């Protein structure tokens, strides 16, 4: 499934072998596909406190084959702004990429993220969203779906997941899109398109976390495919925050195959009303936007 570019020596891979990612972590595929999409271009990675910086391992080793800055939890877009500003005035145009989890994106970092988007900084921001505070052992976040059991919502989360894509689109940034680690061509195309655009670009990747989702590591890709097919995780793009393109429609109306493979949903295995209501409302909104404000044809 994952693409290892054979022409590169291992040490120059964006994600080097020997990193500390768990088996089945969505980041392992996501980072390798990001590397593939960028080709020979070397980004600077700006990573706040999250599993993504644990991936780097312990000093003096580095799991990343590119210059990488570990920032405080809420700061990656601010630090990336400074890096981007000084790099540009020195004629360095390598992409500056924030790689942040959902805690750093939906919750503690949202003010910093919003401000960097409002300033339209020349940054690619990728949120690998595992829907929990994975690094601290799986607590609820603003990205946790309704009904999911976490270590701080033992009875299942009562609230719905925050719509971060709508929030980012409302900043009228040049490009926002969702990424699936089960849809390789779509993933690569979107990263390459994001790279071709200037200004603030936001990419949201649903990232399986077997330890937090209580799922099997070898099922991670399949889970994301089911999340897309069920309509829970729509694949779509928003251009300039106003024009919508849906990349794939759900082909199943059932959420059960997705949640049945994750024990975090065990509280709602037999009652999917809330999750289904969430999916229906999400698609009503998306369909409406894509109908009224369609993206231009390629």
């Amino acid at each position, binding site marked *: 499934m994952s693409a290892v570019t054979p022409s590169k020596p291992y040490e120059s891979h964006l994600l080097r072998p020997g990193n500390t990612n768990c088996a089945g972590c969505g980041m392992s595929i996501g980072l390798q596909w990001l590397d593939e999409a960028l080709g020979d271009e070397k980004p600077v990675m700006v990573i706040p406190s999250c599993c993504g910086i644990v991936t780097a391992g312990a000093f003096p080793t580095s799991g990343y084959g590119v210059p990488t800055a570990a920032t405080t939890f809420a*700061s990656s877009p601010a630090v990336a702004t400074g890096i981007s500003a000084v790099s540009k005035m020195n004629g360095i145009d390598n992409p500056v990429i924030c790689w942040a989890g959902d805690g750093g994106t939906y919750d503690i970092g949202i003010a910093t993220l919003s401000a960097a988007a409002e300033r339209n900084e020349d940054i690619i921001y990728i949120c690998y969203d595992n829907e929990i505070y994975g690094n601290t052992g799986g607590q609820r976040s603003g990205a946790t779906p309704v009904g999911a059991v976490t270590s701080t919502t033992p009875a299942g989360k009562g609230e719905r997941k925050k719509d971060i894509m709508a929030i980012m689109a409302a900043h009228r940034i040049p490009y926002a899109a969702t990424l699936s680690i089960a849809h390789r061509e779509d993933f690569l195309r979107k990263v390459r398109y994001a790279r071709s655009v200037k200004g603030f670009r936001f990419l949201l990747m649903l990232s399986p976390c077997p330890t937090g989702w209580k799922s099997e590591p070898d099922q991670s890709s399949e889970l994301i495919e089911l999340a897309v097919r069920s309509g829970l995780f729509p694949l779509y793009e928003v251009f300039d925050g106003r024009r919508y393109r849906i990349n794939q429609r759900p082909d199943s109306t059932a959420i059960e195959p997705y949640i049945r493979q994750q024990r975090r949903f065990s509280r709602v295995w037999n009652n999917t009303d809330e999750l289904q209501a969430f999916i229906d409302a999400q698609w009503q909104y998306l369909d409406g936007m894509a109908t009224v404000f369609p993206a231009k044809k390629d």
Partner: protein
Amino acid sequence: MGRTLATGNHVAGHALALAGEANRNERGCCAGAYPITPQTEIIEYLSGFKFNKGRVVLVESEHSAMGVCIGGALAGGRTFTASSSNGLAYMTENIFAAGYYRLPIVMIAVNRTLGPPWNIWVDQGDSLMMRDAAWLQFYCDSHQDLSDTILLAFRVAEDHRVMLPVIVAMDGFVTSHTQMVVDLPTQQQVDALLPPCDIPHRLKHDHPATFGGMTFSNETEHHRYAIQHSMEQVFPVLEEARDEFEEIFGRRPAGALESFDTSDAETILIACNTMARTLHNVVKDRRARGEKIGMIRLKLFRPFPREQLLAAIGPATRIAVLDRNHSPGSGGIFWQEIATTLRERPDVLLQDYLVGLGGGDVTPENINAIIDDLNERTSASAPEWKDTSI
């Protein structure tokens, strides 16, 4: 620019801007900026300055202002900002990050009381809160001292023997919003003083590494030891910087501290910032009346100039510290540091006085009352709260 009348904030903005511009033929400069009273005019000045190679990023919080400085320095730029009071408190996490990353950022702290209750007037508790953040700290008593010290700060911070960030503090309103006659530097002078900003550990594409990643106890201990060692190098580096400054500007800014009439003094008072200037006038008056009294203006707080202080105290056996800050449950923060330094001088009676908290005026009458109190003592007591309305 030459000799002119300017506010403290104008002086600070001018010095920061010229220091940033001095790096125009190198990797440029970058500031993260966010307003808070009483430092706002500094970031307004920076926002209006036309940098040839620089950018002032107007962010949404102090936390991000320091984040932008961290990023700009990681990319090799000269970086600076300013803040006060609760702004510094909000920025704290990234202040520590900048220190431990060893990035030579210069920040102006316009001292203001921490709230609540809300109070915009001077109190040094805000910058002193950052004493353990691996930043150098200078406290300035005048507009000229401020202007000169900001330039020295870049020169010392970026020296490879130091490579640590610097806070330059001034009194809110008393300095920031009043005008004094000051010799403002020219671009040519600043260019001559400041070598190119060269941050050896900046992010490099030909040397991919994770900067600020995880370490275990032995690497962390080594990192802290290296910072302590660099702090100790500040003293010789500061002397070199003052020498160079004097050659270019024809005047010599104060170093770690200034002492007046201490060589034969039996009684010494210690203070910082503008309070030290009032103190100096009182001490001169009492000297003229035949009292064996002297004073020390403490300028460098981190690293703490222990040896210089012991040498300056000389034979004196009675010392009063005037603290415009308060560590609840302990006392004045300068007093704590001085008491640690004086453990080798058990013959000294050291008394702390908490004065001018929350911006109260500290008048010659207040200081005379303190001296009278000190002279009557046979032993020290817990920090004394002086009623500043005496």
